[in-house]
């Protein structure tokens, strides 16, 4: 009989011994990215910072920090902006950060570590910035979700995606968001904010998902005339009649890009509202001022910055025996929330146009962005030139 060790056994004996070959990392040459354009600073200021500032007046933060979950990226610009605002109010920011499915290079990780080191003085110790991707949260048994459980619930959730929340590949972002919402409403009874930045062009939605996505809007149009009117006449610019205009694949494919973007925003908002309608204890989802802008240099915007405030509704008891007469009514009004959503999507602020029409605002945002980028270790000597050039290119291609 042979005494030779079978080959697979020999491999098993080696397993776990040799670590990956250790390699050095090198510094990255940092170059400006699309989210460094001045328009994004409007979102940081007027949406993220402004709404958070309003929220903290409704929370008791005397003995705790503001808990914040986001996708901070290498630069952590969102954290810098919020931490500075909160510092003036003697409130600390406690962060949990994930990745947004960017390829995790070792150099990228180093940049994250350096940025995390920079912001560590501004935020609560115990803040965690993970390399895990956000879509790991689609599995509630994941280590990433464990971090959510350990660090939540959150006062502000900021999902600044580079791509669509209805990611073409799968629905892992949406499922992750569902799990997050579920976790939030189970663990807290105070209001909280959700920011979702998402691509909103036709290419960023999987065809298979469209029918289900539009169903949320179709349903509201059937049950609420005002909503139907708003979608048909205001958004789609079509005559409204008694039969709701059904959104389907063929119709939306031919839709102008701007309308698609607005409907996409309504779709996301309706999805959230309907989600909350299924919860035992009710939460209102109020749509806040939202923005759109262009990633591709085309006439219509294709990126949405949405904002929602979740507010718990008080429980109201009814006496089923009739001993005590009550006239308590169900306060969760899906239609009313739908109308508010519709109004915000109708009045979406086109940031590119806004900056085109307001030179002072453009200059201010450019200056603020430059300061932020300097703090994030960018050489901003040419930033203004880069920002102006990008803007001029956009103006030209979009025929402003």
């Amino acid at each position, binding site marked *: 009989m042979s005494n030779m060790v079978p080959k697979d056994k020999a491999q098993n004996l080696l397993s*776990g011994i040799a670590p990956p070959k250790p390699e050095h*990392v090198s510094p990255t040459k940092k170059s400006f990215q699309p989210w460094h354009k001045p328009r994004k600073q409007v979102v940081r200021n007027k949406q993220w910072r402004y709404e958070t500032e309003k929220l903290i007046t409704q929370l008791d933060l005397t003995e705790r920090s503001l808990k914040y979950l986001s996708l901070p990226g290498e630069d952590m610009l969102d954290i810098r902006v919020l931490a500075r605002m909160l510092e003036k109010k003697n409130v600390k920011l406690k962060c949990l950060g994930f990745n947004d499915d960017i390829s995790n290079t070792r150099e990228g*990780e180093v940049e994250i*570590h350096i940025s995390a*080191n920079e912001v560590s003085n501004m935020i609560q110790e115990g803040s965690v910035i993970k390399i895990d991707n956000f879509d790991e949260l689609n599995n509630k*048994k*994941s280590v990433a979700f464990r971090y959510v459980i*350990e660090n939540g619930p959150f006062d502000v959730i900021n999902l600044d995606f580079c791509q669509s929340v209805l990611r073409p590949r799968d629905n892992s972002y949406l499922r992750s968001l569902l799990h997050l919402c579920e976790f939030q409403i189970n663990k807290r009874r105070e209001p909280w904010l959700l920011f979702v930045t998402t691509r909103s062009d036709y290419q960023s939605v999987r065809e298979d998902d469209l029918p289900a996505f539009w169903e949320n809007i179709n349903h509201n149009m059937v049950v609420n005339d005002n909503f139907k009117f708003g979608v048909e006449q205001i958004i789609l610019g079509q005559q409204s009649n008694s039969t709701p205009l059904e959104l389907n694949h063929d119709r939306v494919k031919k839709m102008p890009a701007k309308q698609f973007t607005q409907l996409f925003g309504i779709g996301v908002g309706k999805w959230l509202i309907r989600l909350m309608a299924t919860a035992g204890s009710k939460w209102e989802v109020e749509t806040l001022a939202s923005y759109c802008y262009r990633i591709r240099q085309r006439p219509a915007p294709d990126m949405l910055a949405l904002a929602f405030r979740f507010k718990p509704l008080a429980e109201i008891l009814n006496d089923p025996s009739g001993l005590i007469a009550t006239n308590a009514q169900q306060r969760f009004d899906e239609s009313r929330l739908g109308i508010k959503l519709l109004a915000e999507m109708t009045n979406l602020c086109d940031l590119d146009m806004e900056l085109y029409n307001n030179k002072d605002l453009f200059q201010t945002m450019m200056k603020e962005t430059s300061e932020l980028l300097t703090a994030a270790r960018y050489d901003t000597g040419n930033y203004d030139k880069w920002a102006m050039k990008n803007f001029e290119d956009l103006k030209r291609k979009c025929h402003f």
Partner: protein
Amino acid sequence: MSKTKSKISKFSEKIKKASENEVIEETLKTSERVLKRITDGIYRQPSSAIRELISNSYDADATIVEIQTDPPRFESILVRDNGNGLSEDSLSHLIHSIGGSPKRTASGVELGICNPDDATQSPGGRKLIGKIGIGLFSVSQLTKEFQIITKKKGWNHRIVADIVLRTNSEEQMIDPDSEFETGSVRIWKVSATDTDSHGTEINLRNLLQKTRDDLSSKEMWSRCNPGSVMQIGGESVKPQEPPSYHIGCIHEDSPQEIGTEPKLPWEQNDPETVRFNKLVQAMVDERQKISRPSLGKSFDYYLNMIWTLSLSAPLDYVDIHPFELTASDNIKIFRFGNELSSSAKEVKLNPMQTIRQAMDLVSPERGGNKDFKVMIDGIQLFRPIRLRDLPVTDPNIEYPLLFIGKDAPDLSEIAEEIRGGNLEFESYFLWNHSIVPQEHSGVLVRINDSSGVLFDQNFMNYPVAELTRKKQVTAEIFVTRGLDAALNIDRESFNYAHPHYQYIANWVHNAFRQFATRQKSLSSEIREKKRKTEAKQQQTQLESIVEQRIQTIVADEDSIPAPVEFVDDEDKGIGKQEEGVISFKKSEVFQDRKPPSKMTSQERKKEALFEAK
């Protein structure tokens, strides 16, 4: 200037002059002799390396150290502090002198890592506890790649040092004293606008599998796996139960997924300051399940590790410092003498007076800024030693006994060249019938309030057996001067031959003897007192029975009491009553006594006396 010093100085200048993002590379070299001593061999546990990093942060005057270990996955470890940061000179020194710590030397003062007035202190006046050159490279047992990000106050840049270590190879050795390449470093600077901030961060990436296995208690979980069937000595052994508390584990087949949920003694929304207290309480409460709770049985490796780290580091106690106890804390206090013939004397405290005040004690004498917070994965650490609200289990002594001592011996009779300087220390020994956890039985020696050696359960080889008493005592020795040189390089053991160690060992033995004598005599006193009290109670009861019986027979209270006899059977009793004698059946009054078959003469006399009475 020596060759090494010149090399260090040149490299330091190179870093200073480098522009942003300009990469400077250097090979790490050391002699094989030093390397063998300090990198690949001396630290046995991942916790040792983390302990050394905490010490470095402390020595850098940090007030906060934050550690993230990514449990239960352990893919990477981060240690971040807000200490002084490393200068270019210190970094260069570190890279070129692995194992050669400049702390406590003139070089240390030059490098700004020691106080200019006292090289044994940090710039902020803290008594130094670590050795930076060693501590940093202890991480080589955890990983082969790590990064340092450091900044000093006033700087407009951060320095990033990316370090890759090599594993030793015997084949490359020619001369043990020749320099050996231990790895390489890449250094670059990045700009910083937060000029006031300062500190050092170490990121360990690609942890070695062994490290991850240790931290995640892999072996323990494999024994708990219901699917595992082990054969030991030809017999199948059932899977074992997991410990009472643990951080769970990742899924065997899916490393990004939780396999077993954690079981922790705190709630998810408990603040960081409360969690460790609950861990300590959980250990105490284990007494309801196990007679002698132990860290090893109740916790997994991770919880064990944070307990050990909290014992080692110079932290505040989870309750109060032993020397802050007062008379109202229900504890009996004694003072040790320092002579061989001494006996422990009881100390009575005035109301509101602390032990510290009564006995003029100074520990912990850390010096400098006493604020030092260590956070691991959202848990703030405290020293897990409580001397109040201890479980009472002894039937005789119902309160703990605390023995306090201090000494600053005159070592002048030892020749100066071998004396090792002066020695001063303070100590307490706590006796309680149950010490929880059992690993806290023994004596723990702290130098500048820090310890890597932990509890010595043999009390430095105390020669008398005293097996039971040793398990019932927990003691700490706070060395405020000396002994540092007796600590071996791993900081986990002592050089037993050092005069300071030998003196302290002698002192401990003398102290233990005093404690044992006192405790025995106290125990005996209490037993005797109890016996007398019981006897008196029995007599009173007896008299009461007699009086009641008399009253049933004799109507007039003032009449002379009749004689009393104890009889064996009722008939005799009736007869006695007719004679005016009050009789009691023996079996109704006395416990059934069957005298032993074989009695000594003394016992026979006793027996006869009993019968007569």
